[in-house]
Structures are given as structure tokens and as C-alpha cells.
């Protein structure tokens, strides 16, 4: 993309020069200048973003920003090289990226050092990358680390939703405008015809009703109390619906997918290796929390499995580091409930036989874990209204004699959670 930008840039540049030379087309060149300013603004602001794309395309196979893969971690590499290499680090990086082998052979000490440090495996050369490209990549590596990023997908998803809503709205507005135009046209046709009739056949015109021109009629009806009330009601209901809708979404994090300290892939473990959820999430059957597995659970398998298919040793090495050096792994919590909510996994998993996927979505297809449900109260209550209680075979429910009676008499088909008090406040709030 940046290459394209560049082409446009040079193209326009020529045009500017031409434009300035031709004094007669001054206005045209002003327009061009304006356009160019816009484009270059976009270009510069988009630099780091392009750097990311370039980084992903060219470097990510061997480098990560924060982790050592085949090559070193690259975040802040420019600052790191300050004082280590001769001359400015950026220049050194340019020559290293374009042709690291050449640089090493030229006798650069640091280039040799890096080569030795990473097992004597030479880095690919990138003679095709332009100066701007390399700058973009370096700018990208200079970006500060963001701990948890709401993923692009979420943003896009949200956008798509909004545009969906917009299109409906657009159609409605369009129809309204169309109707409005038809109304105006009809009304003016009527007044023209009636005016003409009155003029030509005054006798006939007497029988015609007096019709005000459309603008006057509109003015009159807009001034009427009914119109004002209707208008107020419409505005009020719109505000209420909007507020309620917005308020119920406060602090819900549907689609939340933060970056995790270890690039753990649920897809790989669940779909690929067919590991049961509860093997790692040991609390799901026992208590409130499903529990993020402790490192020793990871080690059950990873004692043997040292290399992963995607990230090689790097990510698994983090588990080893945590296990051997007794370091904690600080996962970012994805599914958060407010403090005043009591939720117990074992109730749902053991008693309700609710599958993990019901709330957590198809985790087996997720590389990074993502919140798929709103976890809002409306969502909880809805499920409690629809879910059937596992009445049979659990003696606990014997106490609900009247319900058993109704089931027997076929007055009831099923007992849902709300029938035994599942939507009452103190089932979850205490």
C-alpha cells in the first residue's frame, strides 16, 4: 500500500511542478495542492500502520515485537542500537535490512555479533524494500506496547453493525423523502389544476373546495397542538429507547479479545489436540471460578511438548520460564462480571449440564479467546427463562411437589429455571 502511495506521491509532485510552471492553471494547481496535502497527511499518519503490514509480510516469520523467535525481539530496536553501532541506528538498520550479509562482510562488528548470537543463521536480505518502507517498519517497532488491544475484528464488527442499522434507516428516510416529494408534487398539481379551473371556468370553480398552497397547509398543520405533541412523543420515545439501549450495554464487553501474555491457541488445544475443557479449567465442576489453569497443569503435557506448530519454542518457553523460576503468568481476564454478581460455574456445568460453548462460544475455533456473549443481566435472565431444569433423576428437586404434580398431569411440559425462582434477585445478587 505504501508503495502505491509513493507512486501517487511522485505522480502528483510532477503535476505540481507542472502546475506551478503554468501560471494560467493556478486554480487547478491549488486544487491539486490541497489534494496532495490531504494525501500526504494520510500518508504520514498511516505510516506506522503500514509498517505493521510490512512487518507482518516481511519480518514476522522470524521476529516478534516482544518475544525472541528465530531472531531478536524488535520493539524499540532503534533506541536499543543507539551507541552500539557506528553512526545513526536508523542508517545502520537500513543497510542491515537491505543487505545484512553485505554489512557483515564489510566488517561491521555489531552485525557480526548479532549473527553469532543467533546461531550463525543469516537473515534474509530485502533489497526490494524502499527507504520509506524500512522507515515505516522501524517506526512500527518504535511503537509503545499496548497491553490489551481490542482487536481490529471487534471494531470492524461494530462498524458492520452500525452500517447495517444505517442502511435500514437510510431506506426509511429515503421512502419518507420520496413520499414527501410525491405529496408536494400532488399538492402543487392540485393547486395548479384547481387554479386553472377557477380561472377558466369560474362557475365550476365555485364548487371546488378552497385548497391552500402546500407550503401554507404545511405551516398550518405544523403549528397545530397535535403535531407538537406527536413530535414531542416521537423525540421522547427515541431518547428513551436510545438511553435504555445504551445503558444496558454499559460495561458489557462483547467481542473483547485482549492480547494475552502467552499466545495460547484454544483452537490448537481444543480442536487439534482434543483436550477436554475441564482438564485445564479444573474449577468448572467444583466451584465459582472455572479457574485459569496453573502452570503445573500446562507442564503435565508440555514437559514432553517443547515445540509448538505455530510459534515454535518461543511461547512454550514462557511456560518453562514461569515454572522453573516460579513466576506468575498474568493473563488478561476476558470474561468479567461485576462485583455484585454471584456466578457459580459448577451450578451450570454440573447441575444444569450447560455446555461450555453456550456461553463461551466456539472456543475450539478461536486462536485467541474472545468474549462472544454480552454477559449482561438481560442475557442471563433470558437463558434462565428458556432453560429447562434437569428435574428428572435429581432428588434435590423432589421438594417441588406442586411442579411434579403439574408435570404428571401434563399441565406443564417442562420446568424452566425461572419457575423455581431462577430469575429472582437473590439467586445472583447477595
Amino acid at each position: 500500500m505504501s508503495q502505491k502511495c509513493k507512486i501517487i506521491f511522485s505522480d502528483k509532485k510532477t503535476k505540481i511542478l507542472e502546475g506551478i510552471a503554468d501560471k494560467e492553471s493556478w486554480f487547478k494547481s491549488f486544487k491539486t495542492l490541497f489534494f496532495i496535502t490531504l494525501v500526504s497527511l494520510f500518508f504520514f499518519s498511516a505510516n506506522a500502520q503500514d509498517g505493521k503490514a510490512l512487518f507482518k509480510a516481511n519480518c514476522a516469520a522470524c521476529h516478534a515485537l516482544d518475544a525472541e523467535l528465530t531472531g531478536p525481539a524488535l520493539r524499540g530496536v532503534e533506541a536499543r542500537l543507539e551507541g552500539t553501532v557506528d553512526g545513526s541506528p536508523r542508517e545502520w538498520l537500513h543497510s542491515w535490512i537491505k543487505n545484512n550479509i553485505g554489512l557483515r562482510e564489510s566488517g561491521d562488528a555489531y552485525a557480526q555479533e548479532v549473527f553469532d548470537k543467533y546461531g550463525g543463521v543469516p537473515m534474509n536480505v530485502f533489497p526490494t524494500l524502499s527507504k520509506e518502507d524500512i522507515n515505516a517498519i522501524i517506526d512500527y517497532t518504535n511503537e509503545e506496547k499496548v497491553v490489551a488491544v481490542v482487536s481490529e475484528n471487534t471494531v470492524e464488527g461494530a462498524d458492520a453493525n452500525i452500517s447495517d442499522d444505517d442502511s435500514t434507516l437510510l431506506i426509511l428516510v429515503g421512502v419518507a423523502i420520496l413520499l414527501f416529494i410525491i405529496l408536494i408534487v400532488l399538492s402543487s398539481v392540485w393547486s395548479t389544476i384547481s387554479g386553472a379551473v377557477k380561472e377558466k371556468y369560474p362557475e365550476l370553480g365555485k364548487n371546488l373546495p378552497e385548497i391552500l398552497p402546500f407550503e401554507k397547509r404545511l405551516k398550518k398543520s405544523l403549528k397545530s397542538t397535535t403535531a407538537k405533541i406527536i413530535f414531542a412523543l416521537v423525540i421522547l420515545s427515541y431518547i428513551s429507547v436510545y438511553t435504555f439501549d445504551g445503558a444496558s450495554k454499559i460495561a458489557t464487553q462483547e467481542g473483547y479479545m485482549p492480547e494475552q501474555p502467552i499466545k495460547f491457541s484454544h483452537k490448537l488445544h481444543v480442536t487439534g489436540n482434543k483436550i477436554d475443557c475441564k482438564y485445564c479449567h479444573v474449577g468448572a465442576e467444583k466451584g465459582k471460578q472455572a479457574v485459569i489453569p496453573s502452570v503445573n497443569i500446562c507442564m503435565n503435557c508440555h514437559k514432553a511438548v517443547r515445540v509448538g506448530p505455530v510459534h515454535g519454542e518461543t511461547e512454550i518457553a514462557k511456560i518453562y520460564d514461569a515454572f522453573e523460576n516460579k513466576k506468575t503468568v498474568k493473563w488478561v481476564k476476558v470474561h468479567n462480571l461485576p462485583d455484585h454478581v454471584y456466578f457459580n460455574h459448577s451450578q451450570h456445568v454440573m447441575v444444569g449440564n450447560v455446555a461450555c460453548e453456550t456461553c463461551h462460544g466456539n472456543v475450539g475455533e478461536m486462536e485467541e479467546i474472545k468474549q462472544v456473549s454480552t454477559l449482561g443481566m438481560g442475557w442471563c435472565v433470558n437463558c434462565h427463562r428458556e432453560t429447562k431444569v434437569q428435574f428428572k433423576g435429581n432428588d434435590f428437586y423432589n421438594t417441588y411437589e406442586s411442579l411434579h404434580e403439574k408435570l404428571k398431569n401434563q399441565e406443564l411440559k417442562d420446568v424452566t429455571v425461572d419457575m423455581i425462582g431462577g430469575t429472582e434477585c437473590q439467586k445472583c445478587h447477595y
Partner: protein
Amino acid sequence: MLKKKYWQGLRELSDKASVEAEAHNEFKEKLPVEGLLSDDLAKAPASRRDFLKTLGFSVTAATLAASCETQIRKAIPYVIKPEEITPGVANYYASTFAEGGDYCSILVKTREGRPIKIEGNDLSGLTKGGTNAKAQAAVLSLYDNGRLKHPLIKGEKATWRKVDRKIKGALAENTDKKNYIISSTILSPSTKKAIQDFIAKYPNTTHVTYDAVSCSAIIEASDISFGKKALPSYDFSKANVIASFGADFLGEWLSPIEYSKQYVQNRVPTSENPVMSRHIQYDAGMSLTASNADERHTLKGSLQALAIANLYNKIAVLAGAETVSGIAKLESHDEVLAKTASELWKNKGASLVVSNSNNTGAQVFINAINNLLENYGKSVSMNTVSFQKQGIDSEVQAMIADMSAGDVAGLFVYDCNPAYSLPNATDFKEAVSKVSLTISMNSHLDETTALMEYACPNHNFLEAWNDAAPKAGFYSLGQPAIQKLFDTRQAQESLLRWAGIETDFVDYIQAYWKENLFTKQTKYTSFQSFWTNSLRDGVFEYTVDENTTMSSLDLMEASKTISTNDNEGLEVCVYEKTGFGDGRFANNAWLQELSDPISKITWGNFIAVSPKYARETLGLDLGDLEITAERPVAKVSNEKYEIKLPVVIQPGQSDDAISIAVGYGREQGAGVQRDGLGANVYPFTTYSNGNVQSFSNVKLELTGEIEEVAQTQMQHIMESSRKDNLEERMVVLDTDLSQLGEFVEERAKDKEHIANYLKGSFYRDETGESVHKYPGHKWGMSIDLNACTGCNACSIACVAENNIPIVGKTEVTRSHEMSWIRIDRYFTGTVDNPEVVYQPMMCQHCDNAPCENVCPVNATNHSSEGLNQMAYNRCVGTRYCENNCPYKVRKFNWYDYMGADSFSSLNDGPRGENVIDRDSLNEDVLSDLTRMVLNPDVTVRARGVMEKCSFCIQRIQEAKLDAKKEGEELKDGVIKTACQQACSTGAIVFGDVNNPESEVAKLSDSERSYRVIEEVGTLPSIAYLAKVRNKSNEQEA
């Protein structure tokens, strides 16, 4: 039938109208609106501008808070998860609470490795699952910011290595002078062995036991009569007549948890079997035990010994035994003593006489009386002796003499505070300066530790291994429930290190148990399984097969110590406040804020004077002293010492004695600021007849000053009990044993009447069936007023279980106290010697709840299991519910007492001051350390919401879930609310009233049952069982 008059405060007797008016006003404090309404807006405390500012701020804050991105929360798992821990699931560890002589076998509930609650251990044969307020509150002391966090040398932070090197060096240098170890009562046999080992290494060392409130006389009397230096073991359940002279055996005396259980066992009469014990109390002040007595007489401390001797002579006459000559007749009590003597004699072999007298002669007489009454081997025994107090006062005094003489080189203080609690603390302080090596192993920088060169802080008991033998044959183990929080070291290990023994104390305990206890049983063949099982159970018990016989009874010798002259003048009686003890829990905010059962006063001590004394001698008007918090201040003095405290009129107080509680007036910054809270009255105790006496003559004069006391007595009172024409409204019911039959008949009629009355109402159909259906469970509770002694264990248990905020003295004064369960104390009878009924009062979970109907946002509503639910996050704080609650059990979060929100300005009081800072509560309730005690299953409520008893919904839900997971029916008795669990007498029973077989269903329908203001039609879920007294009309006849 019930034309009896009940009153909670004195003013009700004199000026009913004003109390009635007060009762109507739930929110005592004036809302700061007058300012707004007044003409002079500029001077108003809250002006229109302030209002707009607040409005603007809250709108902006709410918008900001709502629009902020949700904070990133981390989930940090264990690196290596301990096998027994599942996050979110509580673990229970059996342990032992043993502080001074207080003993309780406990279970410690831990969540994610931190103790959050203490419960009674049902397996203990001694405490039988019971607890008291102190045991319940002990978990907060673990998270006390005032604890010493590392060793000190001369007040400077030091390392254990350095401390050990220096102390060992000093000990080695000293070869000729004496060393003393002074400790409070040590129940742990292994600790005693550690001390023996220390003494073996340094043979010039003596161990002295010192109890701030001592029972030396009983021990010495046992030594004289039986040749055993220990306390007898009592069984109150085997006594039909109990006579107690000053012994507060239900409150603080020796082993109250054990005694309460026994006492109540013999006090459950039915109309078919109207039998219960009779309890006669002779007491100077209105102690908890005195308030429970069937017959009570005031008797000041200095006359107690004489009264006991008189009683002996009267029984001796009845028994035909030889009387002791030279005993003056106690004219004032002659008649009642004669009656007591005859009652005791009639119940020979099934009676019990106890006394808290610290006069050895008097205790020898007590032994003689029990011997004459043939109680030994029945209600009192010297075969299984008790060790719950071991201090000998004379030994302490001898130690101080040695120290003053300069004969002492080393002083080791362990778990006692003589510089604060000795009658001659000043002598002790002086003597300390003559000792070269002074070491304190106390956990706080208290009055004594501050004098010492070395402070070697001990672990909290929840961090340490320990064992205990409160009674012969009863052993229990203590195990750590948490890693040590600070750089402290167990005192026993310190002693072992200094003695050059490097063993861990747990190995040391194991060695002791292997040697001494493993052999006492046959169940387990290997020591390992014996140890593991004992540790799991927390206790190990075996029957002691001994037969101790009385060796000698020299009553002539004993009578010499009995003073026959009645001291004219005013006497001060120094006592331990129920649930507070000797002062060691001064830093415990839960216990500080606990309302004293009788006076209902929190945060500080006071001078209790009798109504007659107040009226006639001090010229105070009784009624005026009740409603406001202000009390006149008086100076109490003797020739050496004086204090100033507020005067509180206490019905039932002896006219010639005043009572003041010990444990207050702590000087040294024991970590948390408690300066100025009450006054120390230990200096009023005297050392005479070889023991410390808890009374002495004093002068009292009003100073003209006024001080506020934080008294909850007249806060949250129920208005309906006070309507003139409705005196018979059923708030508290009590009757006499002789009238129990009639009472039960009347109750049956009442119940029928009310049932008829409710028929066809909103909540009962024409047949009397409930309109509201409770398809599954219907939770209910029954509370036996006859079993409730008012000890307050339930109140603290509720605070611990439900994260109830502590609000501080000033806030309590403003009626902002937050407890969900309160013990209402009702007086009946005369002001001078009233009878008392205790009534635990909490949310009644009415089926027709007045609070539910008035909530504009439906934040409080009814569940299908009969619970009155409170949804905090829905509450907007209108407080209509509290206004409409006839039981006054709802509490409002006037401030952010628990730090639930992040804006500290939420705690700015009406005068701009921060309500938490004002009472220096930050360290107590808001620090990260103390917040570790919070129960993670219960929401921490924010400012502006109502709260109230939830019937421990979290426990109900947990038990239901466990049953569901097992696929079993929920068994009766599985769910225990926190208050029920804590109760040592089993007064509270909780369960499913839909299940006719459940205990609670049976009790709720039993003959003594009634519901509070039942006739109003609120249909409460709590049934109370009326109190029955045994006032012995028959015996008189």
C-alpha cells in the same frame, strides 16, 4: 394475660410520649435541609450553590464513570496449585482459639489461603460447636495493622539473627541472678514443655503465670482442699439450683462457652414437663449472668466472702453439721441467704454454688458448701480438673519484689501486659528498669513491650502451630491457616532457639503428642495416623480415671481471711465486659463496636450507677439521660488514682457499688490509635489477702462536664411496642414456670384468634391457607428466648460473615450503627432490680412485608422461598423501607464505610470532616490488610444503599448447590446461618418450614412459639419461643 410492662430505656418509664415520638423517627439526625429552607441562604450549611455543585459533580462523575473503558483485569493463576485449594471453594481447618484462659475449639474457614471466618468445632466435647464473640472476632485480629511487623531492639528495627545472638549472649553471661518468664495462662502442654526446656538450659529461670483477671483463690482453695493446683470442672446441666456469687459464668468467667451450653440444657421446660433449673445470682453489677438469673440480689464485692460464709453456716445447720463460729451475720441478706440455703439443701446432690471471689478463704467455704451439698462428682468435679486459669497473684508479686531488689537479670514477657493491668503497675514499671535483659514476646507494642529492650513479636494464633489442654483429658491442636503475614516468630520457637534447640515447634508438638497422648488411645496403631486424624478433628479426648478426695477443710483458718466489717461508702466493682475481656482485644474494631448486652454501649467504658444512687446521691433525672448520647462525666478517685468517665444509669446495679469495665484506656499506641477511648480501671484493683481483688473503695463526684456515649439502646426501637393501649403487643413474651400451663393455653387461643383474623386477607384465603405459594423451600427460623443468654456471639459472626461495616464511635452516636442482628434487651419489673429478656432481632422475612410495598424501584421483594430479598445494585436509597419496617432492622449506608467506591469524598460528613478519619478507622476497616477478612461471596455495599439480614443467602445457596450436585434431597440442619453456627446454646434454629419433619417447623409451631407483633399481620418467618423463668413460687408456698 400479659399486662406486664417491658421497657428498654429509663425514659420510657417516666416520659412515654417523647419516646414514642422518637420511635416514629427512624432517622434521628436532622437532614441538612433547614439551611436550604431558611431565609439566610448564605449562612446555610449547604447552600443552593453547594447543591448545584454536588449535582453537577455527580452527573459528570456518573457520565465519566459510565463512559470509561472497563479496566483491564488480570487473572493470575497459581504457578503450582496446592492440591487442596480450588479457587472459589472454601477450606476449613480445625484449630484452637486459646487466648489467655479463653478456650474454644474452632474451624477456620479459609478462601484462597486467607482465613475469613471462625466457626465452632462440633467434635469438641468441651465447647461442642459453640463460640463466643471473642473467638468469632479473633480472625480480624490476624489482620490487625497494629501488630508488630518485625523484631525491635530498643525500638529500632532489627533482624531475628541479631536479636538471637544478643539475647543468647546476655543469657550466657548471667549465671548468678534470676530470670523470669511471665505469661498469661498457657493451655498448651507443648509450650509448657518448651518453657521447661528453657529452664533446663538456664536453671535460674522461674516461670510465673499472670492473669489480668485472676482466679488464684479458686486454685489455692483447691490446693488446700484437694491438694490439686487447678480449677474444678463444673457441670451446670446437672444442677437444679445454681447459686452464683459474682461469677459471670455465662459471660466471661472461666469457660463461658462450655457453661452456657450446660446451663441451657436444663432450661427447656414444656407444659407437660415443667422442669427447669433455678438460678440465683448475687452480684454487684448487672452482669450477663445476673441478667439471666431467676432470682437476683445485689451484693457488693467486699461482702461476698461474708455472704458465702453465712450461707455455709445456714446449710450446715440444715445438714446438721458443725457451723463455723466467729462469722458475723450479714443482716442485709440474711433472709434471702436462708432461702437460698434451703433451696440448695432441698436439691442436695443436684445443686451448684460458684463464686468469682478472689479470697482463698471464701473459695474454701465454697468447696465446703458443695461438699455439704454432696455436689462433688456430680455438678462439680476435681477428677477432671480445668486449667483455664493458672495465674497465682502472689507469685507475680514475689517476682516484682525480686525485680525491685535487683535480683533479676532477665525478664521474658509472653502474652501478658502487666504494665497495664497490674494493680501496682507503677511498681512493676519501676522494677523493670532494674532488670538488664528485658524481652517481650507480645504481638503488639503495648504498655509492657514499650518498656522492654527487645520486642520479639509472636505470630497470631492463626499463623502458628499450637496445642491446648483446657481440661484434663481434653486436648486440641492448632494449625496455621495462613502463611505468616509479617516477620514475626512463634514465641515458643523463640524460647527454643534461645535455649539452643533448633527443632521446629510443630515437630516439638508431635514429639509431645507421641510421648504423652498416643499411648492414651488404642484406635490408631501408628502415630502418623493418630496425628493426622487428631489434626483433622482438631481435638483428642480421653476419659480421665482419677478419684480425688477432699483432703482437708480447715474452715477456721479460712474464716480468718473473711472480713466481717461492712465497708461503708461507695465501692467500685471492676469487671470484664461481655465480649471484650481483659483488654487484649482493644485493637479489634468488631469487638469495640459490639453493643454491650446490658448497657448497649459501644466504643469505651463508663461508670454504671444504680438509678437510686443517681437520683438520690447525684441528683440526676433518670429520664433526661436516655435519648441523647450526652452523659454527665464523673471523677472516680481513691488516694492514688483518678479517672473521668461518663455516668450511665444501670437498672439492677447495686446501690452501694459502681461498676466499670476493664480493658479500656489503653495508652501506648498499640498500633491503631485508640487513645482517649475510655479509661483504665485496673489501678482500682487491690492486692490484698494474697490475691488481687476486683473491688475497692472510691469517691465519685460529678465534674459538670458532658461526654457522648455511643449507646445503641434507644436506636432502632420498635414503635408498636410502646403504644399505651397496646402494652400486650407481642414483642417479648415471658412467663413463670408455675404459670407455663396457662400461658400455653392462652397462646393457643391467641394463635387461633390471629389465624381467624387473617383469614380472607390479602395473604390468607378463607380456609387460612397461604395465598402466596412457596413451591419448593420456605425458609424459616426459630429463636428460643429461654436459650438466648445475650452473649452476642451471633452479632460478631454476622459481621464476619456478611461484611458488615464498622462505622466508628461518632457514627454509632448518630444512630448509624450497621449490625444486621441486634440483641434487644428488655427490662421488666422494678428499676432497682429488673428482670431482663434478650431478644435477637433481625429481618423477620415477613411474608407480608411492609418494606416491600413501599420500595419505588422494587429493590426489595419476595422470593419464592420466602426470603425478603434486598438487591443492593437496584437500591436508590429512598429509605422508605426502613421507615415502614415495624421491626427496625434495616440499616442504611450513610457513607462509604467499606471503601466500596473509589471516591474518598463520599465519606465527607455534614461538617466536612471525613467520617472514617474522624474515628481513625482507616487502619481498621479500609486498609488492604484488614480487607483480607472480607467474605468474597458477599457484596461489599456502597454508600447510599439499604442492607439487612439475608438469612445468610450465600450459605443457603451453597448448601442447595452441594445437594444438587450430589443429586440428594437437602437435609434438614445442613444449612446453618452464621448466627446459628456461632450460638453456643443452640437458641437459633434455621431450616425449611415447608418440610414438616424439620426441626424449625416443629419449633415454629411449638407451644411457646409466637411471632413478634404477629397481630399486625406481617407474617414473619421467624418464630420466637417465649422466655420462661423459674421464680420459685412453689418453693415459697
